[in-house]
């Protein structure tokens, strides 16, 4: 177990560097100038030239090296060891200037949001997405497993067909349709929930449900399939023959095994839900991470593109690792 974790963690930097290189090459190739607005007056050419120098955008290899150096934490380590950080802090104190904020993993300034560093943006958006994604996954698991078990206990009954229908809707209806419909119903007509925003639990309800529905639908199908298979297996028949209560059979025996495929799906699904959904964030005005994946590319905000991709990649790797570890607890047979 420890060996697995150590091995996987050692692989992490290598995988991230490969992802970093591919993403930066692609992002660099996006046509257009990140320092220009989409519409309107262009800055003078000599100003553009200065902007590129200020942000290291005039040379791919310099950018590649500098950004990696800063983002990986190597610069922080090197500056600390060489005493450069101490000297800088001292100079700042002597001249009365504001101390430079240098995070360990320095993801650079945002080109679009000039007053914010990518670290600040991630620090403000990631907790929102993690909270929303966490709540959504909780809802998804409760609804999904519940519906799946109901469907499996009485296959082809009304309850099964009804959950199948809802699941089908959940998978096939795009999020922006469900989201907008919920918003119109609860926000505009009934006026019981806010029409968007973030900060209070009631702000979270509609986006979490919207985000949860497709996951719930998929989990319901996985659970139903697993349960039907398990309920017809020999050990379940044995348990029933022994006189175990139906609830005991379902919960203690069948569900435990039927849950394995759900668990392996939960790893990447949680990472996905927790890094934000562009559509849900747009519809419900949630200040999460999802919008930055899309907008950063549209704006060619290089620092922000690299920052969110690195964060997402790291999260994905860690969640997959967590699922592998959990697997071993649930099913000790797996090596």
């Amino acid at each position, binding site marked *: 177990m420890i060996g697995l974790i150590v091995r996987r963690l050692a692989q992490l930097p290598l995988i991230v560097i490969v992802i970093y290189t591919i993403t930066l090459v692609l992002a660099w190739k996006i*046509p*257009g*100038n990140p320092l220009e*607005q*989409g*519409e*309107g*007056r*262009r*800055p*003078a050419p*000599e*100003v553009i030239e200065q*902007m590129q*120098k*200020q942000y290291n955008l005039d040379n791919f290899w310099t950018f590649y090296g500098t950004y990696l150096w800063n983002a990986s934490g190597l610069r922080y380590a090197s500056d600390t060891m060489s005493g450069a950080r101490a*000297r800088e802090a001292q*100079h*700042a104190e002597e*001249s*009365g*200037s*504001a101390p*430079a*904020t240098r995070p360990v993993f320095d993801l650079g*300034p945002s080109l679009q*949001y*000039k*007053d*914010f560093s990518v670290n*600040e*943006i991630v620090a*403000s*958006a990631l907790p929102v997405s993690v909270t929303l994604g966490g709540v959504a996954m909780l*809802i998804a698991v*409760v609804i999904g497993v*519940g519906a799946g*078990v*109901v469907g499996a206990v009485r296959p082809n009954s009304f309850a099964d067909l009804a959950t199948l229908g809802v699941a089908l809707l959940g998978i096939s209806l795009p999020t922006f349709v469900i989201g*907008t419909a919920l*918003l119109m119903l609860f*926000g*505009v007509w009934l006026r019981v*929930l*806010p*029409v*968007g*925003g973030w*900060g*209070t*639990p*009631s702000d979270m*309800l509609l986006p979490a449900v919207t985000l949860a529905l497709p996951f719930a639908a998929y989990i319901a199908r996985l659970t139903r399939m697993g349960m039907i298979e398990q309920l017809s297996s020999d050990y379940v028949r044995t348990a029933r023959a022994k006189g175990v209560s139906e609830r005991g059979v*379902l919960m203690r025996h069948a569900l435990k095994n039927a849950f394995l495929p759900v668990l392996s799906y939960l790893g990447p699904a949680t990472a996905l839900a927790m890094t934000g959904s562009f559509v849900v964030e*747009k519809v*419900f*005005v949630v*200040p999460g991470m999802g*919008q930055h994946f899309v907008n950063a590319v*549209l704006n060619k905000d290089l620092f922000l593109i690299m920052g969110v991709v690195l964060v997402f990649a790291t999260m994905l790797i860690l969640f997959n690792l967590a699922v592998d570890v959990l697997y071993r607890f649930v099913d000790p047979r797996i090596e």
Partner: protein
Amino acid sequence: MARLILPLLVVLALLGALILIDPPEERADLVFINGNDVTTLDVTRMSWIPDMRAADLLFEGLVRNDVLSTGFDVIPAAAESWTISDDRTRYTFTLRADAKWSNGEPVRAADFVYAWRRGMLPDTVADYAAWFLLVRGGQAFFDWRTSALDQYAARPASERTQDAADALWAETLQRFDESVGLRARDDRTLEITLERPVPYFLDLIALPVFCPVYPALVSRYEIPAADTGRLELRQGWTKPPEIVGNGPMKLTRWRFKRDLRFEKNEHYWGRDTITLDTILMLSTEDPNAQVLAMNSGTADWLSDVTPPYRGDMLAERRAFHAEHAAEYERLVAEGLPQYEVDRLLPPDPRKHVQSVTVFGTYFWNFNCKPELPDGRENPFHDARVRRAFAMAIDKRSITEDIRRLGEQVATTLTPPGSIGGYQTPAGVAFDPAGARALLAEAGYGPDAKGGAREFPVIVELAFNKDSGHDLVAQAIARNWQEHLGVKTRLVQKELKVYREDLKNANYMTSRAGWYGDYGDPTTFLDLSYSTDGNNDRKFASPEIDRLLDAARAELDPDARTRILEEVERILMDEELPMVPIFHYAQLYMFDPERVTGVSAHARTRQLVAWFDVLGDGKGDDVPRSTHAPGEPTPYLPDAWKRAVHERSAPGTSPSLEPAS
């Protein structure tokens, strides 16, 4: 079975409980949606409208535009008066004695010098740096600093120490003081010397870009970096609690991508004229979510209504007016402004959407270079061809059947009547037969011998996706096919690609638009100067260049206006490097019975701090509406009223009539 549903019920009950215990936040006096989050509050570096709208709350320049006057009058702000030298190059401003920063410190002339110097430094990379370089010696200073930085970067690493960077910075400051035409003669006297007369200078410096910043704060965040010699721009001073401004409000909270909360600045000299104690600016970006927020009462004013169904919203507004036709026409006949008419009509959400014609034009570009990007001969190099294509576009059908936003058909680049004393030319009208004849004259079409020469290329219409440009492109393509018999091809591009292709003239014809920045025709006409950085058409006419140069050198305002009129006449009657299609309309959304102080002026600048919520018991709760140029503005501080009275209005631009 019931037990399986139990966990679900528990989660739902928990969420329900969370909602019930949810403490409602106290609503701000005014909540508005700014179209997007603010990208920067560093006034010197900003260039886009939502940023400037926020800056107008927090900062105050030397002068302001009175956005409720039809003339968009320039009125005193942080400066109480000014004099202009006879050669129109030296401006001497006297700051008002009670102008204060939000920390209580006085605003000094040196604070302006500091802010403007930032604008001129290559280190600051201000989008609008070029405007600061109008000051005498500015361009030379920018160039000197640029080359000094290049030389510094070329030094060996051992010579690039903190001391060396500090020394270069000290030399830069000295150079600035010796060579640039900006002086703080004393704490209240600011002297600005320009390279050449700039007739629209006062209107230009009313933009927030020219506001001061607080030197004692900002200088702590801009330190010469040892390895490059450049000022390292550290973030932080634009956020609360650090930020210090001199405007009517102060920023108390900025939650990225959520909202900005403003409170009245008790140190502001005109504080008695502000009736809003708190303002909340929402960063809602999605057009549909913005309208929902308005409909649910979450927000009071929406700065730009942009969902795809906005044409329908305007149609419903017209239906509302039709239902109350008698009352509506009586109020209009009384000469009341648009918002006032709607305020007096019965309450109805349909009247909350307002369309205003703005100081901007949607047009179609021709690539004017002799050759096309692929090396073939470019038929659009010939002005007759461009004019023929312009005459073949049915613009009315585009505005009425496709856009449906109440936009005015355009035949000129400068919106007619938008600049006082300036006459726009007639431009070319829709004339399919004339277009065919002109195209034949240019050598394409039936000739005298009965033969015909086909148009040599498939005409490509490039546009960026979104915003309905595809529909306009289709309409124009159909016009050209039907009336001129040419083949067309639509080319849709992603915004950044489209921008890049425009800049490199990598297109045949393309959609484009332009908003004027200041109240002078050159804000539109300079686009056709051969070497202008925004001349995407690569249009080059020695005559136009000569006339624009002559206008630049002309000191007599009337003579200058005549020259500029001639420039636009040649461009819009003869040369047509671009075809104006319509003048943009912008849609605001607010309840005119509740919110007042919104400007209907074409320049679309809004001073949100001077909005008032009617019936909230704060202020006099009297509707504020548009007034004629030079008239005192009733809601402004007494000092302003006097100043406006005493000064003959610096007549910039009577506003366009609002579109309805």
